[in-house]
């Protein structure tokens, strides 16, 4: 049984604790930051790694001579390329399509390479084209059998090597992309980018 003079004091303290707890639970801060900034939080694969790979691969592929050689043998016509599978051979979730899309964008933007739709995308396009043969007017329908055959296929894989002891961890990512001549299976270009991260964890975070 509380004494009459301590009751208001106790109620006040309880209210203060409740307000503090509620306000503590609802703290959330959202800010827009530069998408080009490096923000490493957990040490896992992130947007900065994807961008680093894309930048390196774009530079390597466009500076290599394969596209120029093809154009020289074909009167200045850029080579046609299809993006095949880029396999994630790591234990981590790595969305490979982020850097592949960056590469595709650079290829199209540069005009150095003609990019054709992938097998999955082609199915949808063919469905639409087939539909047009029946439903679109003759002068607007897309004609059948006018697809551009790719001469080269881009394939690749992402691999990791991890080393850990105690609170220290080193993760090494290796991204390999290859461009293969679809007719001869000759590898015309091999691109590679390596990222090594040193991650040190504290036991108590501030």
């Amino acid at each position, binding site marked *: 049984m509380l004494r009459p003079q301590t009751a208001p004091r106790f109620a006040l303290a309880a209210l203060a604790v409740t307000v503090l707890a509620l306000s503590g639970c609802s703290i959330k801060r959202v800010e827009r930051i*530069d998408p*080009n*900034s*490096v*923000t*490493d939080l957990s040490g896992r694969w992130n947007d*900065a790694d994807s*961008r*680093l790979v*894309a*930048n390196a691969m*774009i*530079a390597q592929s*466009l*500076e290599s001579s*394969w*596209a*120029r*050689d*093809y*154009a*020289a*043998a*074909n*009167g*200045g*016509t*850029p080579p046609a390329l299809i993006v095949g599978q880029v396999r994630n051979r790591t234990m981590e979730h790595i969305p490979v399509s982020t850097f592949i899309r*960056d590469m595709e*964008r*650079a*290829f*199209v*933007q*540069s*005009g*150095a390479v003609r990019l054709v739709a992938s097998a999955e995308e082609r199915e949808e396009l063919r469905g639409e084209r087939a539909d047009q043969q029946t439903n679109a007017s003759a002068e607007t329908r897309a004609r059948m059998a006018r697809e551009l055959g790719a001469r080269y296929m881009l394939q690749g894989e992402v691999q990791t090597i991890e080393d850990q002891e*105690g*609170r*220290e961890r*080193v993760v090494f990512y290796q991204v390999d992309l290859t461009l293969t*001549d679809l007719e001869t299976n*000759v590898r*015309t270009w091999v691109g590679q980018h390596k990222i090594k991260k*040193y991650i*040190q964890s*504290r*036991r*108590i975070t501030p």
Partner: protein
Amino acid sequence: MRSALLLVVAAACAPYPQRVDQPVTIPNNANIPQVEGADVAAAQQAEYARLRYSADSVYALAIRGCQPGICDAIGRGEIVLGMSPDQVMAAAKTGPQAWVVRRFDGFGTMVPASQSATPYDRVGQVMVVQLDQGRAAVVSRRGPQGIMVASTPQDQTTQARARAQAEALVREGDDLVAANDMAGALNRYDRASVLDPDQPEIEYKAARLLDLQLRPQEALMRYQRFLLSMELERIRAQGEANARLAEAIALAQQRVIVLRGEVPR
């Protein structure tokens, strides 16, 4: 109690001895701008434009005063005998950068400048064009069954090309028989037979193969087809030169009699 707790906290927060001491290449909060394709490939675009301009100039030169047959071939994108080097380039939709042209005393050769990207015409991958008095005299292309050479106008016809491919397939089939790959050999003979239906020897080879594989019904049909396709009178008139075929006919006739008895009607 309190001091023990402090000791634990101090131990937990104490600086940890770092074993990796390498300079940081990209610190947190750094900025990595996205590479733009147009910036990287500006020189490449200029190079492509130069190549296109060069190929267009060669094309204009090639069609100036050309003979109708050669003009048509350039339009079709096919290298034919009698073309000048410019016309060869135009037919392959290329410029001088794609070729290495060597000339000596009226003769010469045109070979691809790069082995990784060789020129193509409508027929296939061009390996060598031999020039005689400045005109294409022999055209060699790479086909699925080896190099195909066209040195006469007859070699340039579709039938001639099919015959050359059929010959190559028969050679491949013979090699597969020697290597004990009967299914592969039969596949090659079948393909050769479609490409060159006027070659009864292919039917005979296929029939023999099926006969050896103990497939009498199919062998019988192939022997009969072989015999039907042969013009016996013509073979007899050709005499000794075709003695080998006459022997094959006799054997085929014998096998037809034997197999007819074996195959249930």
